[in-house]
């Protein structure tokens, strides 16, 4: 039942992964073809970005029909086939569900705006003024100036927390709540294993509040969870709620709301800690992270399809992140940085490995963003967040092996620069090289999956005097794993207080080599730049 705790999740977009029919756009046929690749990599779940019919003004997060597949990606039957093939390989499927809003092209909204008397009028949030809910922040500050948009058809304002073409559904309306459960049920009955519920803090609005994280919103979510558990036990809900840990905690409820939630504040602090060569940002945010119910889990990630969000950092931290990771203004978007992992880390293999090592060993379930396992680059000349959504680079041939279509027909240009371009960075080439990033990722995932301690164990931070060293002990029952990360670009010596583990020998989990037995003295380790160790502690 707790499969999500041990999962390695791979995030992909159907459009970007592999084009099975040669039209220049990735599709379910293509994705199904590449399931063996994912299985080899070691992933146990795949999270798909929205693939529903949509005008695609927000990359599919503007859904126009919840019960179908966008024609560019195939058919419902294609999806069913893909789902079956994934399950055959032991890969679970997580799909996106955008509860908060629809596209303005959705028939529901078209009906709602058609007249004030339409039965679906109350499915969205309408107002005669644009002054209600004044205390609500604007999320897409680069493009929107208000959370209200004027509808010239019904001559009133509608509420939208994201783009103005994405009107918010009205969750005060029981018919909306019922309908959205029906949508979820549609996919659950088909066999999907989990939903990533998009933008959940914003479901309900109340005057005099910031319209986020409201009790009424939690009530809606709890009701969905209750129905899920009753009718589809073993399935999972993953929350997208970009909030501080203390504000996120209620989304787990008493184990009766979300199974998992993204830990948004941790990710920028991992980058910050690496740049500062100081563990403080990482340990501090994890110290502030509240306990969650035993059945729940954090979802950790380094990069995803959005910008590297800097909403959950202080102004000082944000300025630092901008100056150190996005010197060029074109790399910035909203309150974040629209770059992929490898370019953010200057394509430094040691830093990429260290960050992935932390991702895989800190408490939570890791998500690998498609292409990051081979160190793909980005294209900051593409607008919005499209620079990190370019076609997957499978080989060095035509269109990087992504599609047989004419390159002009591709949904987006491939990365072509000399460093990150598909001739240099591709799956085929890396498969052939034992020491490639891809093969390293495969190995680290294998080690991670060799024990449940990373997904389910407790964490205890050691605080060695050397602040460049991030060290922690993961523990599950009798299994104890010591993780030591050197965040510094230079070699470091560190003394660890391991007296409570006196008598244990340390076995490095990657090479299975033994290190000296723990005694009464501080355990001295010397670590190369950006090096990390995972040690299994064994009392033999």
């Amino acid at each position, binding site marked *: 039942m707790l499969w999500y705790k041990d999962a390695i999740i791979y995030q992909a977009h159907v459009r970007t992964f592999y084009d099975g029919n040669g039209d220049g756009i990735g599709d379910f046929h293509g994705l199904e073809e590449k399931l063996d690749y994912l299985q080899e990599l070691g992933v146990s779940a795949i999270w798909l970005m929205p693939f529903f019919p949509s005008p695609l003004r927000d990359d599919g997060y503007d859904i126009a029909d919840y019960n179908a597949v966008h024609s560019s990606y195939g058919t419902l039957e294609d999806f069913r086939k893909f789902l079956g093939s994934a399950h055959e390989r032991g890969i679970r499927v997580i799909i996106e569900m955008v509860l908060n809003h629809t596209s303005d092209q959705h028939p529901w909204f078209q009906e709602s705006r058609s007249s004030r008397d339409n039965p679906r009028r109350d499915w969205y949030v309408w107002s005669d003024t644009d002054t209600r809910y004044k205390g609500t922040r604007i999320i897409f500050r680069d493009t929107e100036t208000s959370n209200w948009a004027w509808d010239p058809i019904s001559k009133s304002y509608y509420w939208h927390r994201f783009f103005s073409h994405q009107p918010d559904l009205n969750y005060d309306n029981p018919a909306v709540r019922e309908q959205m459960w029906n949508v979820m049920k549609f996919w659950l009955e088909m066999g999907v294993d989990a939903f990533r519920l998009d933008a959940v803090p914003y479901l309900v609005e109340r005057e005099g509040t910031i319209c986020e994280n409201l009790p009424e919103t939690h009530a809606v979510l709890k009701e969905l969870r209750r129905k899920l558990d009753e009718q589809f036990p073993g399935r999972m809900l993953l929350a997208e709620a970009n909030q501080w840990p203390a504000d996120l905690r209620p989304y787990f409820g008493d184990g009766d709301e979300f199974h998992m939630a993204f830990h948004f504040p941790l990710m920028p602090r991992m980058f910050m800690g690496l740049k*500062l*060569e100081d563990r*403080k940002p990482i340990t501090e945010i994890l110290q502030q992270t509240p306990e969650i119910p035993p059945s729940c889990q954090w979802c950790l990630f380094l990069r995803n399809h959005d910008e590297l969000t800097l909403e959950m950092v202080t102004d000082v931290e944000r300025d630092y992140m901008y100056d150190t990771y996005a010197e060029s203004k074109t790399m910035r978007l909203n309150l974040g940085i629209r770059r992929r992992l490898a370019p953010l880390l200057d394509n430094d293999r040691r830093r990429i490995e260290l960050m992935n090592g932390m991702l895989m060993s800190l408490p939570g379930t890791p998500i690998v963003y498609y292409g990051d396992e081979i160190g793909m680059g980005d294209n900051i000349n593409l607008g919005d967040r499209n620079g990190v959504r370019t076609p997957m680079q499978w080989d060095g041939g035509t269109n990087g092996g992504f599609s047989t279509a004419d390159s002009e027909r591709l949904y987006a240009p491939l990365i072509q620069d000399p460093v990150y371009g598909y001739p240099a960075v591709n799956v085929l080439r890396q498969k052939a090289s034992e020491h490639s990033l891809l093969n390293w990722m495969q190995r680290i995932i294998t080690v991670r999956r060799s024990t449940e301690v990373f997904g389910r164990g407790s964490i205890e*931070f050691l605080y060695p005097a050397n602040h460049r060293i991030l060290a922690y002990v993961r523990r599950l029952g009798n299994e104890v794993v010591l993780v030591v990360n050197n965040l510094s670009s*230079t070699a470091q010596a560190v003394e660890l207080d391991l007296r409570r583990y006196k008598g244990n020998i340390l076995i490095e989990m990657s090479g299975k080599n033994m290190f000296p037995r723990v005694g009464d003295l501080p355990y001295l380790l010397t670590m190369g730049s950006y090096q990390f160790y995972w040690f299994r502690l064994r009392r033999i």
Partner: protein
Amino acid sequence: MKLVEESFLTDDFLRQLISVGEVDILVSLPTHNNAKTIGAIVQTIQSGILNWFPRERAVIINADGGSRDGTPELVRGVSIDDARPASNLYALRTLHSISTKYASSPASGVALRTILAAAELLRAKACVVMSPESANIEPEWISKLLRPIYDDGFDLVTPTYRRHKFEGLLITNLLYPMTRALYGLRIREAYSPEFGFSGRLGSQFLGQNVWNDGTDGAGVELRFTLAAIAGRYRICQSFLGEKDRIERRAADLVPAVRQIVGTLFSALESDFPVWSTVAGSQPPPTTGADHEVLLEPLRVNRKRLREMFSTGVAELESVFQSILSPSTLTELQSIARLGEEEFHYPAELWVRTVYEFAASYRKSVISRDHIVQALAPLFRGRVFTFLTENRNASADEVENNVEALCLEFERLKPYLLQLWKSGE
């Protein structure tokens, strides 16, 4: 790294330094039983670092001369790190506060040597020494003493202060005018408990043979400033504000003279190739005022100063015969007989006195320590005259008088050179 040579660093301190690692900013605090003030001072320093150097790697290092009041523990207790989340200061990164005790006496020389060694091992780019007694320290001081080094490439930042016109008289009547005349740079506070320096200057000075010269290391901060001038390092001044007034008893003068005059005279020997070729003087770049004068009334026992001068001239006649020229000694004996109303120790005679002392120090006509101590009663006579001349003087008039004395030191510099060369 000179670990073998730097064996005066304890293993425990080395272990702490290893944990700190490379830093950009090093703030040092030499202490000795400063528990009453040190907590507030460290917090002010932290505030300064976090305000003006929030992104830089920084450390606060306490070199303690054997405090028995828990001073080092207080310093160590205020580190800002992830093991101490209760800190009320927000810091982007860890800010270590570490401490070491040295075994010898709490002489400043050992403290500075420890600080310089730590700076070199940590490859600190910009360093500052702060006084553990500065009750009026402001966070801005950190910026004022470090920014010129960190941002503008200076190697030494000396402070300037707002002082009472009768405060720091050894500086205004001897140290400032003499260093200015000899070294050609108008450094107002060449011997200060607060100053900033670059890592490269610190390393260069650490390697100099000044640590085992037979003195107890007192006055080594002055030596540091003089070495920077002599080494043609980039020096500037930064105005810090009001200087704490420390009430000193008359008995404090002798150790102060030994520290300041002894160090200055000692440096003149090694720096002769430098100062002998310098003519005139230039002001260093200065941020803010190069001095400010407070004028409020201050009670000074001038009568006692004159009495101690006269007594000294009489009792130390044989000593002065070894040090001073006959004409200078005769003039001093002459003014020693004057009553309080007529007493006047002119600038020209004072400069000649000092220069003759310097030359005799070099020749070691008697014990060098005795030579330096013998200057104390004469200095009291000079102070009497300075107080009299400036009793009702405005700030400008005081400055004009100091400037006149400086020019006298510069004018008579050939006399010192002549004395110096006659001893060769």
